[in-house]
């Protein structure tokens, strides 16, 4: 059980599996005997729009919302959405970002986005080619969030044990996709 709450925001694009990822983290937090509250959004935003979900875990959690500047970690499944989340970040907030970009008309060039993230975050930025690795090794893009979560546990970016996350995956993911998700988690170095 954690003494201080851990405040996490996950950002990405609708369809990237944010809600499943949130469920895994929630279960892992419970396995480690934390209190947990999370908040998710459904609806039109799912259709390829920006999506943001919150979760908090620790000894005692009151509000399910992470307010501006309160996040310990922002998990970005898309670089532009990570850049958008700079508006939610405090001076301590770390960013673990999937080196993946779903661009659209009149959006920014990727180099500019990475530059903005680097300039704003410095050593608090961790960019990992999760999508590339998952597509190459597992022929599946949608598990890149799970890969990132594995990475976060192995690099102490999230106060959850790798084993707890694995147990949570076994609990949350349907049998049909379980092996794929476990592989994605195990890929993370």
């Amino acid at each position: 059980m954690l003494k201080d709450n851990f405040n996490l925001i996950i950002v990405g694009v609708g369809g990237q599996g944010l809600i499943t990822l949130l469920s895994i983290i929630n279960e892992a937090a419970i396995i480690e005997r934390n209190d947990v509250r999370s908040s998710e959004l459904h609806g039109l935003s799912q259709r390829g729009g920006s999506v943001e979900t919150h979760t908090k875990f620790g000894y005692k959690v009151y509000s399910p919302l992470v307010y501006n500047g309160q996040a310990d970690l922002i998990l970005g499944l898309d670089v532009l959405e990570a850049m958008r989340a700079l508006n939610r970040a405090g001076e301590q907030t770390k960013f673990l970002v999937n080196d993946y970009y779903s661009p659209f008309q009149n959006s920014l060039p990727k180099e500019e986005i990475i530059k903005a993230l680097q300039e704003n975050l410095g050593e608090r930025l961790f960019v990992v080619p999760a999508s590339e690795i998952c597509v190459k090794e597992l022929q599946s893009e949608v598990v890149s969030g799970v890969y990132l979560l594995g990475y976060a546990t192995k690099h102490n970016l999230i106060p959850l044990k790798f084993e707890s996350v694995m147990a949570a995956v076994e609990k949350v993911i349907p049998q049909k996709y379980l092996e794929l998700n476990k592989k994605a988690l195990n890929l993370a170095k």
Partner: protein
Amino acid sequence: MKKILLGNEAIVEAALACGVDFVSGYPGCPAAEIGDIFGKIAKENGVYAEWSTNEKVGLEAAIGASFSGLKSLVNMKSFGINVASDSLMPLVYTGTKAPMVIVVADDPSCWSSAQSEQNSRAYAYLARIPMLEPADPQECYDFTKLAFEISEKFNIPVILRTVTRANHQKMIVEYQPHSAKASRGVGVFVKNPQQFGTMPPRVLEQKQELIEKLEKVKKFADNKLNIITKSKKPNSVGIITSGVTHLHTLETLEIMGLDLSILKMGMFYPLADAKIKSFIKNLKKVLIVEELDGYLEKEVTAIAKDTNPKLEIFGKRGAPWALPEIRELDAEKIGVALAKITGKKFTANKIKPVAVPRRYPKLCPGCPHAFTFAALKRVAPDAIYGGDIGCYMLAGYPPNDVQDFVFDMGASMGISHGISKATNPASAQGFGRARQKVISLIGDATFFHSGISGLINAVYNKSNPLYIILDNRITAMTGHQTNPGVGKTLMNEDTVLLKPEDIAVACGVKNVKVLDPINVKELEETIKDFMNKDEVSVIVCRRICALLEKRIKKAQE
């Protein structure tokens, strides 16, 4: 039992624990999972569940069930209660026979709502209906049970007014696993026209009965729902909270190291004025923390006039740091206000704003709407475009840009007619060509929900819009719910399949064409042809939602 539950899942669990027999409603975010879940589990639990054509019909179905002695749960999003309100008003007068709980899910910050930032608490005043406000999934469970209890005891419908952050919040919920009923409850209708109608002179007697009932509800529920948590040491500052704002407030107090008394109002209506009186009697300052309109603040201001005229009341009014009436609240916004009131420090995080281009939601790959939007832009770039509620609202975003107005469910039909009449007076006499042609888009479910009366009106009044019904064989935006055009009920039973083109013909439309929008040439030719008609015309663009098609194929594999 302890398990992590979504607010909506907790509502379902509680309804099952109370032995609900009859579930109706219309899918809308953030309430839709309630009906979705019942669709999957109703049969095995001895429950009847349906998606109704719209919220009004959904409420009426539950009224019929209640009058026949069955326990009912009605579910809808905020705007649903606007549609249902016509039947809600007399229902509160007649009262229920078997208990009924109506879930109305508001969406402060409009995360998935396009028409207004509605505060449905106002309906409590308008209808004089008891209204409970849960803060989280645990309270979604506890309050749903209490709502059934109140409804059963006093024969009155009860609204469970939720917000997105309660419906879509997850936490560990403690609850009693329900036991499945052996078989579906069978109602018996016992005639009692004196009770089940509001014909004068009964209507005013019933109003009197209602007023008396509400006093009893207040007495019964006050201590169960309106909770005072006293500060450890006496303090002259107090806080009144409601719903999810209570959680943010507790967090703020912990961050600031403040020890203040809190009155949490779990029941918005009937208002426990005596409880508020006792809470504010000895305070110097009180902060009212509520989202959107300051209804409680106004009530407290009125109560304080007699009880504690010197009391300083803070909430939505006055100071620039006052709580905003727009958007949901969080611990930071409350912290800023509390710092001003108590003189204690709360450091709001300084955020250096970074400009990022907006990512518009977009049509899914293979979406049939894309073909229609593109054809319209090519063939009729200058038409006036009406929009309606559904995935096809994306017509309003770039690069589609074929939506000049959008309102509420079905409204495109009536507004398009009004524009046609206003801009093309010649058509009223039945000659001349439209100077500005109105082309209006509506989905299958929205057409069934409340488009049909608009269509009838346009035909009857000799109007000339071109109505395009985008029939993707499902209610897509809210998560693929069935509707009268699908041929399946919520409980997955086969049923009659209603066709919008048949309805259009029955409504007197002479120009009706059904086509697959991927046949671009046919679509474009038909648009061109119907553009020149001086009467109402209807094109049904029929092609299954691309996501649904993919899912069906996957399931068959």
